[in-house]
């Protein structure tokens, strides 16, 4: 089916475009960008007047929980949530049951996503077998089966030697290593950021040094092996300083942060709110300011959600035993648009961090509206005002600290391969 997207403000940093244009989509690909394009017979028309049209947004860090933990989320509900949030592609982490450390699991994800998913799913395989940190996973096989990166996300590779070898080996296979940077011995039994709030609440703290020390190690290993490295969910001032310095001396390091790290501080834990429990933990106002600064100066390449669905029973418990993580796919866009309102990012810079850069980091042919490219397109209504309500979320889980928040901005249309998979009613 063909589609004409008429009169939207098209922002495509991959071509340096920011102007009101029409986009013609034919057979799932971008056919033409221009003014006053006519709709071919039988083509659908999307009126994008007053809306923003961008390359389809990409969330390079989500947990779809499929296979094995479908009671939290599955590929169908997870991709539905992605579509509702304006994402045309997601990269899903391997901490499923079983762990995505082999071709069979990767193939299952790819096949199910193709058959039933609403958006593109790019699997991330594990760095080590079973993500146990003992032996390298078969990265060549994983890549061949469709993995776009490897990560033991959820846990760090504790052995420095193994991390070194992972970086070297992955480079040979041409696959990106994503580091979950955390020094577990410093984390200990910590359940939130170590600071004034943890002192007041009497909860065991996780020092920022647990993230910084691990980030530093991995950055130095990337430098030593001359291998590309991506650091997931950066949350501290110190980690950002390390990454900024590394980039300045030419280390091939990229990183992402998540909307909660520029929207919330550890104050959100007060009242023992388990929907504010995540890993890395919510930090202080200084860290939040540092995250914004790093978004602005380009130290942070991408915004990813670390969408981590958990069942209510796993959150409706004492803070100590609650599982880490929050959902994020449906709140990421408005929280990120706030950065534009606050003057932290321009709209094109935001699109880079939510579409172009994730595609480039993962090496996938997305993130552009160039002629001939796959027609993955997000049409954003920047003025839409809505309230986050558990019942209205497409995700199977509702563990969001933003429930009840008023949001501004939403995906008006999410278009995958030329097909509208979500439109705002």
């Amino acid at each position, binding site marked *: 089916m063909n589609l004409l997207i008429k009169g939207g403000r098209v922002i495509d940093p991959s071509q340096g475009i920011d102007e009101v244009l029409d986009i013609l989509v034919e057979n799932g690909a971008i056919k033409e960008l221009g003014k006053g394009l006519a709709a071919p017979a039988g083509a659908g028309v999307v009126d994008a007047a007053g809306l923003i049209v961008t390359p389809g947004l990409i969330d390079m860090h989500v947990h779809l929980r499929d296979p094995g933990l479908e009671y939290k989320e599955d590929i169908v509900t997870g991709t539905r949530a992605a579509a509702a949030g304006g994402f045309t592609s997601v990269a899903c982490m391997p901490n499923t049951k079983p762990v995505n450390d082999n071709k069979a699991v990767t193939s299952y994800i790819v096949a199910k996503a193709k058959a039933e998913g609403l958006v593109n799913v790019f699997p991330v395989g594990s760095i080590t077998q079973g993500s146990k940190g003992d032996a390298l996973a078969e990265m060549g096989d994983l890549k061949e089966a469709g993995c776009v990166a490897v990560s033991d996300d959820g846990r760090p590779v504790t052995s420095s030697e193994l991390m070194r070898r992972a970086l070297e080996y992955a480079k040979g296979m041409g696959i990106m290593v994503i580091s979950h940077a955390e020094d577990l011995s410093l984390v200990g039994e910590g359940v939130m950021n170590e*600071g004034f*709030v943890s002192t007041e609440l009497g*909860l065991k703290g996780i020092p920022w040094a647990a993230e910084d020390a691990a980030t530093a190690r991995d950055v130095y290993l990337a430098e030593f092996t001359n291998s590309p490295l991506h650091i997931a969910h950066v949350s501290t001032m110190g980690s950002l300083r390390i990454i900024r310095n590394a980039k300045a001396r030419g280390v091939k390091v990229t990183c992402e942060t998540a909307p909660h790290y520029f929207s919330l501080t550890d104050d959100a834990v007060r009242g023992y709110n388990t929907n504010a429990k995540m890993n890395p933990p919510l930090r202080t106002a200084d860290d939040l300011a540092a995250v914004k600064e790093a978004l602005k100066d380009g130290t942070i390449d991408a915004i990813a959600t670390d969408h981590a669905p958990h069942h209510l029973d796993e959150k*409706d418990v*004492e803070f100590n035993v609650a599982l880490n993580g929050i959902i994020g796919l449906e709140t990421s866009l408005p929280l990120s648009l706030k950065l534009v309102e606050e003057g932290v990012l321009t709209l094109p810079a935001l699109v880079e961090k939510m579409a172009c850069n994730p595609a480039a980091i993962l090496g996938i042919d997305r993130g552009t509206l160039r002629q001939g490219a796959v027609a993955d397109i997000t049409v954003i209504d920047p003025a839409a005002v809505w309230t986050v309500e558990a019942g209205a979320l497409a995700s199977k889980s509702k563990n969001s600290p933003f429930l009840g928040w008023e949001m501004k901005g939403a995906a008006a249309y999410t278009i995958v391969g030329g097909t509208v998979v979500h439109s705002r009613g």
Partner: protein
Amino acid sequence: MGFKHKDIIGLQDLTREEIQLLLDTADNMKEINSRDIKKVPTLRGKTVVNVFYEASTRTRTSFEIAAKRLSADTINISASTSSVTKGETLSDTARNILAMKPDIIVMRHAASGAHHYLAQRVSCSVINAGDGAHEHPSQGLLDMLTMRQKFGTIEGLTVAIVGDITHSRVARSDIFGLTKMGAHVRLAGPPTMMPPGIERLGNVTVCRDMREAIEGVDVVMMLRIQLERQGKTLLPTLREYARYYGLNPQNLKLAKPGAMVMHPGPINRGVELSSYVADSDQSAILTQVENGVAVRMAMLYHVSGGELATE
């Protein structure tokens, strides 16, 4: 004024006036405890359930005596915290307890915030008998009552708290309560046991060492060291701890003459306190225990509405 809270989770949540009221009531309760027949009908027909996820004979017994002296029916449940991780959640436990139709639940739990969680889910009153490293309000109140009996007022006192501040719910309740009542608190302990930002909890000074902390103070509060909780990284040996952070007759001389020595118990003799100090005239440890019953009677009385006394 009346007491408006359904629950007592922590002294942080109470106003100065509410703390005053609890202490005044506790003073009145002390009179009951000195009678021949130590029982009043105040809570007759009420059910108090003591749920202790952590063993504590001392606090549990004190709450039980307090409830019985007010004529409440009491039930003791000891649950092991490990059953929580094995599947029985606190909310399941809460439902089971609620089936007993209690008026007041007194709970001790290893998780900070467990009472906050419970109180939001039950309609009866919840009294915190200690939650993790968060608060231990009955201990804080009995400490204040003990000080008030000796000094007449808490306003203007300087109190040193020495030991493992990070893991101490007693320290937090003392800090919240004492500073609200106008005392100044000085803290000392190994830096491995001093949590960040603690001085922001009230009128609190963190001291470099113990000698600086106790110099010229009215009260020295020594905290219990729980070696099993400290693991091996927070301090090298008890011997060294006793040497640098223990109270003995020599360093006690730095405090005001006749300064009061307190300890939430049970004491590790020769570690936090030398036996000489623990058993001296300056020690208020047994008075603390005695005051514990009166304070807990006051807490039970006020959360249950405090109106049944006319019966």
